[in-house]
C-alpha cells in the first residue's frame, strides 16, 4: 500500500511534465500534494502498515517525518501557483515536475526499511532538488547548485561507505546477510563493534552533510540563499528532516547493538557544534535568507542534540522535527515574499516590512518568535523538552551551553529580523509592484496557525505516535 505514496507524486510529475500550458501546470502541484496528504492520512487513520520484511513500511518514525514533509509540501504546493504567476519569465515545467519528484523521493526515503534503499532515495532526493535550486538561472544560483551538488555528493559517498561498513559489520557478525532494518536490529548484538562504530561515524558525517550539521553545513547558506523561498522551505523543512530520519534509522541499529552511549556522545557534540556555529554566523547577518539557513543549521543541531541527550530528549527532538519543519515553512515563504517586494534579501535594503507587507512582514516576525522557542508556539514545547532532557538527564553543561547559544542566536537573528520588519520602508521598495495577496499569504497563515496550535495543543494520537516512535529509538534489545 505504501508504494502509492511514492507512485502518486511520480505520476503527477509525469502529468506536470506533459501538461502543455504553463498556466495550468502549477495547479497539478497542489492537487498532487493534497492527494498525497490525504492518502497518507488515510493510511495512518486506517492503520495500514506492512509487516516485517517489506522494503517500505509506514512505521511511527516514518509517519512523523513523512507527515511533516507532506503537510509542509501541501502548504508549499498551495503557495507555488501564486509564486509562479510572478515568474512568467521562467519555464516552470522542470520546476513543477521537480517538486513532485522531490515529494516522491522523500516519501520513498521515509518509508524505506532497507539500508541500501534508504541511501538510494537520499541520492535521488538530492538530484531532484538540484534543478529547483537552479530555478533562477543566475550565476549565483549556479554556484549555489554546484556547491550543493559537490558537497552533497561527497556526503552521499561517505554515507555509502558508511552503509558498506555497517553491512560489513553485520557480515562479520555472521547471520543472515540482509540489509533490512528489521534484520539488522535483530542481529545487532553480534555485529563487529569497530566496524559498527566507524560506520556510525561515516553515516553521521554523510547524512549529517545532507542535514547540514556544522561544519558540514557549508552548502546550506548558499543553497537556501539563492533558491526561491518555496524551495528553501522544502529543503529546510523537508530534506533536513529526511536526512535526520536516515540518521535515526542508523542510530537505532547502533543503539540496538549496545553502542548507544558512543553514538549519543557524538550526537551531543555535533549538535552543540552546529548550534554554536550557527550562533557565530547569525550575528550581524544582513542577508535574511542566509540567516534562515544558519537558523536551519542551528535547528538540525537541536534535533541531534535532543537525540543525543536521550530520555525525553528523543521525544523533544521528534516533536521539534515537526515544529521546525513547519516553522521553516513560515519563515522561508514569508522571506520569499519580502524578497519579491524589495527586490533584495539584504537588510541594507529591507526595512519596515510590516508597513510595506502587513501580512508577510508580520508572519516573518511570528516565524522568528516561533523558531526561537518563544511560548506559546510549537518549537517552545520541543526546545523546552530538550532543555529538560539536558538538565534533568545529567547533562547540565550541555544544557547550559545550549541555552547560552540560544540566547546568542536570538539576539543575532532578532537584530536582523527586527531591522527588516520595523521602521519605515525605504524608497527602493516602492518600485516593485509586489503586494500581499491571498494566494501567497494564506498558505503561510495556515502554517503559522499550525505552529501556534502545536504550541497550545498536541492531539493525543500525535503524542502516542511520537511516544511510539521515540520508544522504538530508545528500545534496547
Amino acid at each position, binding site marked *: 500500500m505504501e508504494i502509492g505514496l511514492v507512485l502518486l507524486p511520480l505520476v503527477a510529475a509525469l502529468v506536470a511534465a506533459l501538461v502543455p500550458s504553463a498556466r495550468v501546470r502549477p495547479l497539478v502541484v497542489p492537487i498532487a500534494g493534497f492527494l498525497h496528504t490525504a492518502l497518507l492520512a488515510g493510511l495512518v487513520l486506517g492503520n495500514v502498515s506492512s509487516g516485517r520484511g517489506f522494503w517500505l513500511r509506514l512505521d511511527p518514525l516514518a509517519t512523523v517525518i513523512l507527515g511533516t514533509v507532506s503537510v509542509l509540501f501541501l502548504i508549499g504546493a498551495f503557495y507555488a501557483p501564486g509564486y509562479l504567476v510572478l515568474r512568467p519569465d521562467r519555464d516552470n515545467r522542470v520546476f513543477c515536475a521537480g517538486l513532485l519528484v522531490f515529494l516522491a523521493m522523500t516519501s520513498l526515503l521515509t518509508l524505506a526499511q532497507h539500508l541500501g534503499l534508504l541511501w538510494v532515495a537520499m541520492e535521488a532526493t538530492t538530484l531532484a532538488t538540484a534543478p529547483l535550486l537552479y530555478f533562477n538561472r543566475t550565476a549565483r544560483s549556479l554556484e549555489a547548485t554546484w556547491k550543493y551538488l559537490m558537497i552533497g555528493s561527497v556526503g552521499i559517498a561517505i554515507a*555509502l561507505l558508511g552503509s558498506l561498513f555497517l553491512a560489513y559489520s553485520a557480515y562479520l557478525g555472521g547471520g543472515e546477510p540482509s540489509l533490512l532494518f528489521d534484520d539488522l536490529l535483530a542481529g545487532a548484538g553480534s555485529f563487529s563493534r569497530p566496524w559498527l562504530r566507524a560506520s556510525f561515524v561515516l553515516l553521521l558525517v554523510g547524512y549529517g552533510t545532507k542535514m547540514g550539521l556544522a561544519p558540514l553545513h557549508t552548502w546550506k547558506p548558499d543553497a537556501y540563499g539563492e533558491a526561491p523561498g518555496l524551495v528553501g522551505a522544502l529543503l529546510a523543512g523537508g530534506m533536513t528532516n529526511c536526512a535526520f530520519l536516515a540518521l535515526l534509522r542508523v542510530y537505532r541499529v547502533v543503539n540496538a547493538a549496545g553502542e548507544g552511549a558512543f553514538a549519543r556522545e557524538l550526537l551531543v557534540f555535533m549538535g552543540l557544534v552546529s548550534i554554536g556555529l550557527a550562533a557565530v554566523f547569525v550575528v550581524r547577518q544582513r542577508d535574511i535568507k542566509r540567516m534562515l539557513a544558519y537558523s536551519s543549521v542551528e535547528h538540525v543541531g537541536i534535533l541531534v542534540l535532543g537525540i543525543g541527550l536521550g530520555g525525553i530528549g528523543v521525544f523533544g527532538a521528534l516533536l521539534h522535527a515537526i515544529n521546525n519543519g513547519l516553522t521553516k515553512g513560515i519563515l522561508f515563504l514569508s522571506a520569499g515574499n519580502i524578497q519579491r517586494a524589495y527586490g533584495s534579501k539584504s537588510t541594507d535594503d529591507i526595512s519596515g516590512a510590516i508597513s510595506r507587507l502587513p501580512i508577510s512582514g508580520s508572519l516573518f516576525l511570528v516565524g522568528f518568535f516561533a523558531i526561537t522557542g518563544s511560548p506559546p508556539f510549537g518549537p517552545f514545547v520541543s526546545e523546552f523538552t530538550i532543555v529538560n532532557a539536558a538538565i534533568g538527564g545529567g547533562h547540565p553543561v550541555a544544557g547550559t551551553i545550549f541555552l547560552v547559544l540560544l540566547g546568542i542566536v536570538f539576539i543575532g537573528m532578532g537584530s536582523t529580523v527586527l531591522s527588516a520588519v520595523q521602521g519605515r520602508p525605504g524608497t527602493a521598495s516602492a518600485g516593485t509592484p509586489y503586494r500581499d495577496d491571498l494566494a501567497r499569504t494564506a498558505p503561510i497563515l495556515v502554517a503559522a496557525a499550525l505552529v501556534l496550535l502545536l504550541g497550545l495543543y498536541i492531539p493525543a494520537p500525535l503524542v502516542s505516535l511520537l511516544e511510539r516512535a521515540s520508544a522504538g529509538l530508545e528500545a534496547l534489545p
Partner: protein
Amino acid sequence: MTHPVDILLVLVILLNFLVLGTPALRVTIRAVAVQGAILAVLPLLVHRGFGWRVAAIAVATMALKGILIPGFLQKTMRDVHIKKEVEPYVGFVPSLFLCGVGTGLAILFAGNLPLAPEHVGTLLVPASLATLLSGFLVLTTRRKAISQVVGYLILENGIFIFGQLLIEAMPFLVEAGVLLDLFVGIFIMGIVINHIRQEFSSLDTDLLSELKD
C-alpha cells in the same frame, strides 16, 4: 600467493599517484578512465563463480567509469580550452608526498582492522582507503572544476573497491555504488558541462566563490 586482484589494486594506487603528480588534465582524466576500467574487472575476479548480476555490474561500471564520464570530461576540457591545473592549493610534490603518507597509513591501519578470514591478506581494504584519501586530496587541493570531478571519481572508486568485500553477501549495495556513478554522470552533464561553461566560460572554481559571509 599474490592474488591477481592485488596486482590490479597496486595499479589503482599507482594511478592515484599519477593523478596527484601531474598538472596535465588530459593525463588525469585518462588515469581515472583506466582506473575505472580496472575496477570494472574487479567484481569478476573477486566474485567466485559467474553470475549475470556481477556481469551487469562490470559492464555498467566499465561504461560509466571507464568510458562515458571520462569522455564527457575530455570533451568539456577541449571546449573550454584548458589543459593544465595551475597553482593548486598544495603543490604537486607535496601532494605526492601526502598521498604517499596516506597510502602508507592506510596499509598500516588496514592491518589492524578485524576482517573476515577470506579478506585477510588482500589489498582490498588498504587500496580502498588509499584511493579514498587520494580522492579527498584532489578534491581539497585542486582549483579546476574538472579536477574536482576527477577527485570525486577517485573517491568513489575507493568506495567501489571497498564494496568488493561485500559483493558476495550483499550485492545490492555494490549496485547502489554503480547508481552513484550514474548520479554523478547526470550532475556533471547537467551542471558542469552545460551551465558553468556558459556562465563563466571557464572552469576555475575561484569564480565559484562569490557566495560567502
